[in-house]
Structures are given as structure tokens and as C-alpha cells.
């Protein structure tokens, strides 16, 4: 029975730890405990010499782990649950692994575990992390294999390989695998729709805007600098005040929270803007956010695949966005949205809960009594925000029951949500139909990548008011308070940094670096069936069936191998690694071509004696080289190799017939 030594066991533990680290941070606490316990136990067992656990404890631990999994997830079918099962079982395997076979099994499954991380994140850093995991796993496997090889021969290794040589070996193995991986990436058949459906709601947390809005709900987004989506424009790029990325639209207000209406969600848009002659044509690359709405500029003239456009011009998708999603859009701002509105909708756009915000009601009532109506009233409200002492700040105090009153008369400090909410309520009080639109505003134009980057911190909320004949019109009360919010972006409008490292230059650098992630998305993540087809079209192969793709795959791998094989064999050949041997082999080759016979059983000195008989003219050089060689090879303090190398370099024997 072959047992791995302690060093190998620690390598196995390291491999497993590295492989499960990105997964474990997203798991529920009991599962983390179940995965860490065996790991720590094994480390303790190795260091302190604890005995192996009895079978009863091991089996109970397994059952306990299964129960924990079941109660944490409710089932064991989801992505997360399955990966947790794999992680916990692998960790538990550690407590009973005392043979090389078991150790190797753990390492192999760790590689599998490492691959599962791509089910959850496909960011650009993941492949690098994966590469680190694979290298550690390869080093571990090499060690296990070497151990086994020596034990089966019955000898202990005379020389232990240094960690650097093992690392080098693993890196070389990995490098050899890269062409094969590339071939699989390019040629493995892709289907337009995945063969297996990834269950919905599998990401660990929904990101981005939510399906309802209450003052404070966007605030957390301002702190989040992760990208929401990226946009490449085919047409001219709109000016910042026009970059309103429309998301969820809210009609209903209960005094505190805004939410969408049944109509808004379920009735399709009757009339759509003209997509011919529309000024804005662009492609959106939406990061996975687990929501099922897409973002577009006002007003979407086309409908992306698998989506529908509602009557308030939200774009809904049937399934949540769990993977990077790319869609092309055409938007036309010159469009009258619902010039005639049904009474039910009008009621819904004027509805306010009773018994809230009496002071505001009084204020608006005063404006109406002074004869203000329609657009003039809207303008008056905006001027009110602009001229009174309102501040744009993320440090908004919490609001109580009469949130609009408190904001309007007391705190007067807030951000887009407060202004949009307050303004909309005021409009409804004034009898003007109004609603709230949330989404993103602005974006950072990356000149290097020529795309617009919209981050979560660009989240915004604004209002729309309805006038008969003109339809819904966008009004942004935040812009009245802080025009910088619209012109310079959400963060440009803030006077104080959000946190310690919130500097403008750092933000700009981060935005610039984002081009790497964008390219990664462009070239790697979204490489699918259509890109594959595009790759072959220059060759005149428009339609590749899966079987021809597989043939292409194997041909490519075959070609790679044919090119690489000589190099691989060369690394195995004698003297490849050792510069001394390399130089010596060169010397022997020269002797051979000069007509000397080389006996492998002859030592360097003997060989020199014989060669000198053949080549009396070069006798001195031959003896010198042979003497140097045996000194470098066998002496305890070999000097530097250069002397021998240069001697061999200068050695050019003349062919002489003896």
C-alpha cells in the first residue's frame, strides 16, 4: 500500500483549499463549517499525529453533511447546491485519504471544482485564478506520481526536486495544454441555445436596480462601482443630458414605496417609434444581474430577441439575465409617448394614498390657486427646487411617515430618488399625471475601447409627466437642483468622496482598465455559435455542422501535436536540461562527425585518449575538454561552466583518415 508523505498531503490540502476558496465564500455558514472542519482536522492530524477517525464518525459526518446541504438549500438540484455538495464531499474525503490513490482522486476532483467556478462568474480574473489552481494541482500530482514511481521501484529518490523545478514542470505542462484548450474553444460545437438550461435565480445576489423604489433604495448602488452594462454606438453618441437609460417604471405609491403597475407590466406598447431615421443605433452588453429587464435609451424602436416592450417602454425578457447578454437597439427620441391616454391609466397616474403629506398638498394647492397649470406649474416646481436651498447629497436623513413633507420642508437634502419621488407626488397633487422612471443616467466613454461604460453607481431616478397631445415628457428634478448630476455623472455631482479611496483619478483609471474586461467579454465570453460561424465564413464554410466542427477540432489538435511533438521529445532527450550535458553532447557530436567512435561505456578521459589517437592534431584540445568535463561532472566544487563551453565552441576537429 502506498501512502503519500506529509509534504504531499499538505500539497493536496493546498490544492483543495485553493480550488474551493472562490466557491466557499458564497455558501451558507453551516456548509462552510462542514467544508472547513475536515480540512482543519487533517492539518491537525498531520501536524499533531492524530489517529484516523473511526468509520462510524466518518459515516455520520457524511450523513450530517447531506442533511446540512438539504436544509440549507431545500433541494440538491441547483447549481449552488450541487457545487456545495461536491465541495463538502471532497473535503470529507480528506479525513479518510491515506493512500496515494485517494490523494490523486481529491486533486482530480479539485480540478473539476475549479472548473465549476465559471458557472458563477466569468470575469476576466477567473481564468487566471483557475490557472493558479491548475498549477498547484499539477505540482501536487507530480509529487504524488513521483512518490509512487519511486516506491514501485523500491528505491527512494536520491535527489529531491526543488519546488522551482516542479513549478517549472507544471508550467510547461500547462503551456502544452494551452493550444489544445484553444482548439476546443474555437472548434467545439456551440449551439445557439444551450443544451441544458441553467435554472433561474441561480446567482447569489441580484444586483442593480430593484423592482420597487423607496427613498434610500438606490443609495447602496452609488457605492457599487461594478459595471452595469457597456454600450457601443454605431451612430453618433448622444450628449450626456440625453443619456437616460430607461429601466423599471413605477406608477403606484403607497406613501413610502413606489412600485410598478399591472398595466405597465402586462400591456404591450401599441405604437412604436420609427426605427428608420432614428438617430441612435447601438449594441448593449449587459452584465448578468438576475433581473429580467433590459435597458435602452428613450424610446426603443426595435425589440431584441426574446423580449417584449411594455406600454411604458420597459423592455422585459422572459428569463432573468444570468449570463452576459448582448443586444442591438435602435432608439428614437422623437416620439410622442401615448398622446391619448385611457382614463384608467390616467387615474392610476394620479393616484395618491390618502392622509399623507398635508403640507405639500397645501403648497401645491397654493400654486394651483395662483392660476398655475400644466407646463407652467411644472416649471414653477422645478424653479422651486432650483431656487430654494436644496442640496444634492448621499447623506440623506431617514424620512418618516410624511416623507415628501419632511423632505420638502425640513431636510431638503437628498439625491435623485428623493427629488423624483417628491416631484412626482407634487405633480399628482396638482392633477398632472406623473410616474417615476428608474434606470441609469450618463456613463463614462472609454475612448480606447470606444464604448460607453455604465456602472451601477450611475443609477438614477427621474419623473415623467403627461400632457394631452404631447404624451409623456421626461422631467428630471434632480437636474434642477444639481445640473452637474446630469452633465458630469452621479459621482461628479458629489462634493465629498464616498469612501477613503474614492478619488477622481482612481475612478478614471478604473474606467480605463475596464477596456480589458470589455475585450474579454467581446472575444471570449460571447464567443458562441454565430461567432463560430463568422470565423469559418472567410474560408467559404458557411454552415458547419457539429460533426464537421468536431473533425476540425481533432485536425487542429493533431496539427498542434505534430508541431509540438519534436519539442516535447527534445525535452526528454539526454542533456536537454543540463547545460553541461548539452555542451558535452555537442562535443561528442563533433568528434563523431570527425570519424571517432563513441562508446557509451567509456568515461570522458578514456574517450579523449581514443579520440586523440584518431585526431592527433587536436589531441591537446580534446584532453583539455575531457578533463574539464570530468572535473565539472564529478568534482565537489565545479567552477563556472563558461570555460568548458568556450573550449567546446572553439573545438572544430579536422577530419583525418588514420
Amino acid at each position, binding site marked *: 500500500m502506498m501512502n503519500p508523505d506529509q509534504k504531499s498531503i499538505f500539497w493536496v490540502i493546498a490544492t483543495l483549499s485553493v480550488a474551493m476558496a472562490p466557491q466557499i465564500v458564497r455558501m451558507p455558514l453551516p456548509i462552510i463549517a462542514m467544508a472547513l472542519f475536515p480540512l482543519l482536522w487533517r492539518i491537525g492530524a498531520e501536524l499533531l499525529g492524530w489517529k484516523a477517525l473511526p468509520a462510524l464518525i466518518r459515516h455520520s459526518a457524511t450523513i450530517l453533511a447531506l442533511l446540512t446541504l438539504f436544509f440549507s438549500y431545500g433541494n440538491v438540484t441547483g447549481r449552488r447546491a450541487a457545487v456545495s455538495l461536491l465541495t463538502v464531499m471532497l473535503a470529507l474525503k480528506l479525513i479518510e485519504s491515506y493512500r496515494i490513490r485517494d490523494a490523486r482522486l481529491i486533486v482530480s476532483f479539485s480540478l473539476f471544482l475549479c472548473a465549476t467556478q465559471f458557472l458563477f462568474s466569468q470575469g476576466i480574473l477567473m481564468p487566471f485564478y483557475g490557472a493558479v489552481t491548475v498549477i498547484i494541482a499539477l505540482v501536487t500530482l507530480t509529487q504524488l506520481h513521483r512518490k509512487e514511481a519511486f516506491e514501485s521501484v523500491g528505491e527512494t529518490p536520491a535527489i529531491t526536486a526543488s519546488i522551482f523545478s516542479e513549478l517549472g514542470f507544471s508550467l510547461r505542462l500547462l503551456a502544452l495544454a494551452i493550444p489544445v484548450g484553444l482548439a476546443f474553444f474555437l472548434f467545439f460545437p456551440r449551439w445557439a441555445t444551450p443544451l441544458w438550461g441553467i435554472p433561474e435565480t441561480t446567482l447569489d445576489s441580484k444586483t442593480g436596480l430593484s423592482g420597487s423604489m423607496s427613498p434610500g433604495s438606490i443609495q447602496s448602488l452609488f457605492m457599487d462601482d461594478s459595471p452595469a452594462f457597456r454600450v457601443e454606438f454605431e451612430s453618433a453618441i448622444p450628449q450626456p443630458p440625453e443619456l437616460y437609460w430607461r429601466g423599471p417604471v413605477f406608477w403606484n405609491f403607497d406613501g413610502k414605496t413606489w412600485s410598478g403597475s399591472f398595466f405597465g407590466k402586462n400591456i404591450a406598447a401599441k405604437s412604436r417609434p420609427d426605427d428608420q431615421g432614428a438617430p441612435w443605433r447601438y449594441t448593449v452588453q449587459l452584465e448578468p444581474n438576475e433581473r429580467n429587464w433590459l435597458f435602452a435609451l428613450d424610446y426603443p424602436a426595435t425589440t431584441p430577441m426574446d423580449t417584449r416592450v411594455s406600454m411604458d417602454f420597459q423592455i422585459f425578457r422572459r428569463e432573468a439575465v444570468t449570463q452576459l447578454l448582448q443586444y442591438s437597439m435602435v432608439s428614437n427620441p422623437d416620439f410622442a409617448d401615448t398622446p391619448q391616454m385611457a382614463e384608467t391609466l390616467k387615474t392610476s397616474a394620479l393616484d395618491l394614498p390618502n392622509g399623507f403629506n398635508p403640507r405639500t398638498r397645501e403648497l401645491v394647492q397654493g400654486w394651483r390657486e395662483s392660476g398655475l397649470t400644466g407646463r407652467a406649474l411644472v416649471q414653477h416646481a422645478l424653479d422651486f427646487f432650483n431656487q430654494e436651498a436644496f442640496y444634492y447629497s448621499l447623506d440623506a436623513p431617514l424620512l418618516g411617515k410624511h416623507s415628501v413633507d419632511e423632505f420638502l420642508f425640513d431636510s431638503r437634502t437628498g439625491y435623485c430618488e428623493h427629488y423624483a419621488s417628491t416631484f412626482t407626488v407634487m405633480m399628482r397633487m396638482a392633477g398632472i399625471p406623473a410616474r417615476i422612471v428608474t434606470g441609469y443616467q450618463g456613463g463614462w466613454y472609454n475612448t480606447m475601447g470606444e464604448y460607453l461604460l455604465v456602472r451601477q453607481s450611475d443609477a438614477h431616478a427621474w419623473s415623467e409627466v403627461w400632457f394631452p397631445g404631447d404624451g409623456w415628457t421626461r422631467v428630471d428634478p434632480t437636474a434642477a437642483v444639481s445640473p452637474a448630476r446630469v452633465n458630469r455623472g452621479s459621482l461628479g455631482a458629489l462634493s465629498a468622496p464616498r469612501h477613503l479611496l474614492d478619488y477622481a483619478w482612481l475612478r478614471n483609471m478604473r474606467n480605463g482598465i475596464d477596456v480589458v474586461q470589455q475585450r474579454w467579454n467581446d472575444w471570449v465570453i460571447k464567443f458562441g455559435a454565430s461567432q463560430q460561424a463568422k470565423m469559418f465564413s472567410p474560408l467559404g464554410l458557411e454552415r458547419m455542422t457539429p460533426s464537421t466542427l468536431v473533425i476540425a477540432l481533432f485536425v487542429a489538435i493533431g496539427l498542434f501535436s505534430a508541431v509540438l511533438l519534436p519539442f516535447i521529445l527534445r525535452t526528454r532527450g539526454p542533456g536537454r536540461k543540463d547545460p553541461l550535458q548539452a555542451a558535452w553532447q555537442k562535443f561528442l557530436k563533433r568528434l563523431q562527425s570527425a570519424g571517432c567512435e563513441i562508446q557509451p561505456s567509456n568515461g570522458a578521459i578514456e574517450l579523449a585518449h581514443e579520440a586523440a589517437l584518431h585526431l592527433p592534431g587536436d589531441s591537446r584540445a580534446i584532453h583539455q575538454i575531457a578533463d574539464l568535463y570530468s572535473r565539472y*561532472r564529478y568534482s565537489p566544487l565545479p567552477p563556472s561552466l563558461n570555460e568548458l563551453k568556450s573550449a567546446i565552441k572553439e573545438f572544430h576537429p579536422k577530419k583525418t583518415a588514420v
Partner: protein
Amino acid sequence: MNSTVMNRADRTASRHIRLLEAQQAVNEILLGKSLQVRLSFCCLLARGHLMIEDVPGVGKTTLAIAMARVIGSDYQRVQFTSDLLPADILGVSIYKRDKEEFELHPGPIFSQVILVDEINRATPKTQSALLEGMAEGQVTIENTTHPLPSPFFVLATQNPLDLVGTFPLPDSQLDRFLISISLGYPDPAAERELLTTEDRSRMLDRTTSLLTPDDVKELQEDCEKVHVSEDLLDYIQALIKETRNDRWFETGLSPRAGLALLRASRAYAFLDERDYVIPEDVKTIFPGLSRHRLSPSSGFAQSADEQIEELLSQVPIP
């Protein structure tokens, strides 16, 4: 401190020079046999014992006496005959009447260099008495253990032709000898010189000691410091492993023989003025070291020597 180091280095160097001079002196007496002479010294430095195996008259005894003379040790010669008894070698205790006790009269084995002539003529019992001393470095006479002097160097000669009335040594006892050499006839030039120059026995009488017993002990210690690289150990192991392949010999070399090979190779490298062993040293030592330890597998017409040559040419140097 510096001067002590210098002194030590000087002493080492002068010791080494005197060793080479001693070797040269023996070479002057025994003409044209420099390899055998060097192997003999190698055997001495490796704390081994030497077996000289050849027909009479080629200079076996001359070599042995010359060696003993230049080493400058006290030296005894024992002619083995079939009626020789262990006590003749080890010595006897004789009752002294005036002291009223037994007193040991040490035999020839209590000298630093012993020449055992025609070792295969004595009975196994007598042979064993000698060989035990060679192996253990001590002898036991009447329940008292006496250590043998140091250095202790046995040169034995053996006549392979005259087999009537001899007791050939068993393999296990031959193993006690580190190296066996055979001298062979001299080449014509050497023979001519032998015939024209003065009588060898007179030259031997004139030979003075060039080394002291202490020198020999220190030289033996120096030899142990010679460096052996991993690559060389690979080669030695490969050689030993190959002898155990039954297509060559009935039995292979023992681990003891492997240790002996390493020790002798070190001594040989030292004699070649190197502080590290190279494969050529091993190859030179190997026939002398393995000849008396190995017998060819049955079915081979070749002698052990030929087999060993063949084996050496088949094991590549790693």
C-alpha cells in the same frame, strides 16, 4: 592559526609527494608493471589486502618485498606450507618459570606488513587463522584478544598452476582480499632492462623506507575525503547491478564488494592526484576487485577476466 593551516597543507603535500616517490621506487625495481604497482598502493591506501596471483618467477615476491620496504613498516614473511599450524602465524604462550606465568610470543601476524607466500599451500585451518585477523583487525589467542598493529597490510601470493597439494581458498575468504592482481610476463623492453641491469635482490636490500607507518595511516585518512558525486554513485550501482545479472556470473557482487569498490576508487583517484572520483577510476579498479569474487556463469567458455571486460564495455556511463 594561518601558519598551522599552512603547516598542515605542507605536511599533506609532502606526504603525498613521498607516496609518489615510494611508488616510483617500486616501479624501478619491478619493471613495466606500473598499473599493478599503482593497484597495490591503492589497496594499501584503501585499508585492503592484496592478492597476487601468478605463475612463479614473474616477480610476485619482489613486488611484495619492495612494497614492504618503501612503506617502512616492520615486515614479516611467512612461507605457507601444508604443515604450517595456526600457532606458527599467531604466536604461542610459553610458561616462564621465573615469573611463574605464561607469556605470549607473538607470531608474524603482529607486524604491519606481512607477505604470505603461496597462501593456498597451507591447510584451511591455518588459512583461517590468518584470514580472521585480516577481517577483524585482531586475533584471539587462548581467550585473550590482541589488537593487530596499524596499518596492517597483507600481501598474499598464490600460484594458480601448481594445484597438486594445495587448498584453494573458498570464495568467502577470497572476499577478504580487496584487490587481486596478476603480474604477467614483462614486455620485451622491460625484460631486456631486467637482464642488463643489476640484480633485483641487491636493489631490494638497498631500498630504504620512504614512508612511515604514521604517514600511511594519514594517507589512508586522506583517501576517505575524496569526493564522490551522485553521478558516480549511479555508475557504481549500475556496474554492481549488472554483475548480478545471471548472464554474466554465477553470483553478483555483494554490497561489501560495492563498498570495497567505492573505497578502492577513492584511493585510486587520490593516487592520481585528484580529490574527486571519475568513472575511469572505477573502471580501472573494477577487474582487480571483482576477478577473485566472480566466477563466470556455467556454459561460458570465457574466463572471468574476459567476462569483466565485456561487462565494463556494456555498462554506459550515465
